[in-house]
């Protein structure tokens, strides 16, 4: 990068950038010292809009008011959790991790988890789950659940069960599921999910179908139950049943998680063009752009070069933080494997990823990278990891 040259003072570089105006007029051809991927903005009018802020969850003035009130009373737990929950919702809706950071900041009055009120601690753990800091999330949830009277904390048990499941600790997850009280369906679904992962397929399928047969089920509940069923069928190698289940979910309404899962299924079924259709209305979050790039590459679509370039740029930008390749290891490994056709890099990324999270997709990507690399010890490693978790997944069996 020219900008890094020590011989140019930064002021001189800026004056070079001043040349940009002249360049625009076609007068000169000279190098401009600007960071890669950045372009100077030179506004000319006060009413020129230079940035559109991300949409607010509710009313923008209300956001600001909440922030101000919290700044005045940062240790008001009720207010702090309200602000944090609002940001967490925004993070989930938009896939924008900055909101998770803002939510954590709202809880900053309780740096010591031992001194944090229950609801603050739960929210903090949930945010850590969102940020893929699973070990921290588990530690904080266990701390919360060890408090007297906390056995009624169903939400905390459910979150703990989910995080443990993501880590591939199914037995511990089962134990947490059993503590979930109140709404029975949550406990049943929690246990059925783990059963399905372990390969108790018939029982899990029956369980999901029973739950789905209930009348008056909220649409969102029906959505995630059916998604779980679709994933079960997919792992069990029943493509037709999985396809039908995914379609049922998407018929219920927009569902980003299900759309991405279905797209992955379609890509695996060598139906990349259909994957593109499924994703066409989704917001372009990293996970969506990744699938567009992969499916587009496989389908040789016209938009593929753009999506590939964009994904590559996003990865480059994210990796300016060294820990990012661990954070987004799964996605980066998928990109390296399918788009960049670099199995060695994919394998390294996938290994880093499974050290942190062990969902079926993480193991599948590891197995695919190991298979593509042709390394016997990598294949053996993937097989051992799968066995140690106790995951049942015929897609992975086919590769190892």
């Amino acid at each position: 990068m020219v900008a890094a040259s020590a011989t140019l003072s930064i002021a001189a570089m800026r004056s070079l950038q001043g040349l940009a105006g002249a360049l625009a007029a076609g007068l000169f051809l000279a190098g401009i010292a600007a960071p890669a991927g950045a372009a100077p903005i030179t506004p000319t009018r006060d009413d020129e809009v230079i940035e559109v802020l991300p949409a607010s969850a509710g009313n923008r003035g209300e956001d600001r008011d909440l922030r101000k009130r919290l700044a005045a009373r940062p240790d008001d737990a009720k207010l702090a959790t309200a602000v944090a929950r609002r940001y967490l919702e925004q993070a989930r809706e938009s896939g924008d991790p900055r909101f998770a950071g803002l939510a954590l900041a709202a809880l900053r009055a309780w740096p010591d988890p031992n001194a944090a009120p229950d609801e603050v601690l739960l929210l903090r753990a949930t945010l850590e789950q969102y940020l893929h800091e699973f070990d921290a999330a588990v530690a904080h949830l266990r701390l919360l659940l060890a408090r007297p009277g906390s056995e009624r904390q169903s939400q905390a048990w459910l979150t703990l069960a989910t995080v443990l499941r993501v880590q591939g600790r199914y037995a511990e997850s089962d134990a947490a599921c059993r503590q979930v009280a109140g709404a029975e369906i949550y406990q049943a679904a929690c246990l059925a999910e783990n059963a399905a992962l372990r390969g108790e397929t018939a029982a899990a399928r029956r369980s999901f179908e029973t739950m789905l047969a209930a009348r008056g089920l909220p649409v969102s509940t029906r959505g995630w139950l059916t998604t779980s069923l679709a994933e079960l069928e997919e792992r069990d190698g029943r493509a037709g049943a999985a396809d039908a289940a995914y379609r049922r979910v998407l018929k219920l309404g927009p569902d980003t998680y299900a759309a991405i899962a279905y797209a992955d299924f379609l890509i695996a079924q060598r139906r990349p063009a259909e994957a593109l259709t499924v994703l066409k209305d989704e917001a372009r979050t990293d996970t969506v752009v990744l699938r567009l790039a992969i499916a587009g590459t496989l389908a040789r679509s016209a938009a593929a070069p753009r999506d590939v370039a964009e994904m590559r740029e996003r990865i480059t930008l994210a990796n300016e933080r060294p820990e990012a390749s661990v954070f987004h290891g799964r996605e980066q490994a998928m990109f390296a494997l399918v788009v960049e056709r670099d199995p060695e890099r994919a394998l390294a990324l996938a290994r880093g990823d499974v050290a942190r999270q062990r969902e079926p997709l993480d193991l599948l990507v590891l197995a695919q990278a190991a298979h593509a690399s042709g390394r016997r010890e990598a294949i053996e490693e993937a097989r051992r990891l799968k066995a140690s978790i106790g995951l049942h997944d015929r897609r992975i069996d086919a590769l190892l």
Partner: protein
Amino acid sequence: MPCSESVLACPTLPAAWRSRARAALRALLALALLLAAGLAGAHKASDSYLQVTAAPGQLDVRWDIALRDLDVALDLDSDADGKLTWGEVRAAWPRIEAYALRRLAIEGCPLASVGRGLERRNDGAYAVLMLRSPCTLPAGAPRISYGLFADVDPTHRGIAKVQRAGQEVALSVLEPTAAMAAAASKPGSATERASGVASGIATSGSTALPSADARSRTTSAAGRWQFLLEGVRHILTGYDHVLFLLCLLLPSVMRRTPPGWQPVERLGQAVWPVVGIVSAFTVAHSITLGLAALKLVSLTPAFIEPAIAATIVLAALDNVLPIFPVRRVVVTFFFGLIHGFGFAGVLAELNLPRADFAWALLQFNLGLEVGQLVIVAVATSVLFGLRRWRGYPRIVIGAGSALAIAIGVAWLIERIGNVSILPL
């Protein structure tokens, strides 16, 4: 106006006519960039970018901070409509600088602002802070204490690239420390002044950040050359001045002889007339620029702006068909007087510091001359290289001048009638 400290990113256009011309071009560029940004809209975590360039006796820092992050901390969006306008950002700039500068300390190097800018990146618009310190960075890993957004987003990081003369770029990730942010949030307190120490870095006690007063003093000292850059920028982006100069230069590598245009033999034959013309233009616009800046003479832009357009038309016309009864140098001088008033209009908008008025004026003028020299040097070299081409008289001088006449006339009409003709 906060723009008084600006180097590059402030609007500095003298009159509505010219600003509209440039605004049209910039709007197009901005639109293209916005489209690109809209397509990208990447969701990444909050990062700021620091480029630290260390030379003996001088440390420069370019610090890019996302506007959407600053909005959370400082409520830049004053009308809460979800859109950050240039006016809102500009009005908030002193707060941005104050907020940021309290949250960054580099051991042994008190930082002062010397400039600003805006940058569009993949994930949105960034404020660019140019900081400087008259210091030599101590050897070893630089001790940077960082507290940006610690109170707003603990997942925020600063991505620092440190470049020492003759060495590899060293990359480091700065995690905001709450201690520094806590100290910074108590403005004027003793902790603020000692926040370099409070952030926990082992120091020799000399890294305390300058207080607000000290900082603004050092700003004016360190930003000593900002008006020079303003001058350079103004001439380089002032298309009408550039076009006028080009018109004068087109025939400079040729001589008028009875059978027609003939190329000059040696560079010297071209250089001296160019020097004469440029000197005349310089002396003349310096006179009127000075007179207007000192408020001794004042002419309305309603006259000056169309008159500048007219000088282009006449100069270009003279290339095709000699119309001036006197030597070009003399004509250039008179036209230069008119352009000087145009420069003065910019100067007025720059809001020069009263204390250093003469110094700032001199800088601005020197900047104009430096920019002008660049244009002249490039244009003359190109034209000199082309002079033996058979088509030079017809294409370069003839068609070039005709084009200049057309643009000049269009500007003339635009500026008299206050209408918009050219897309540019």
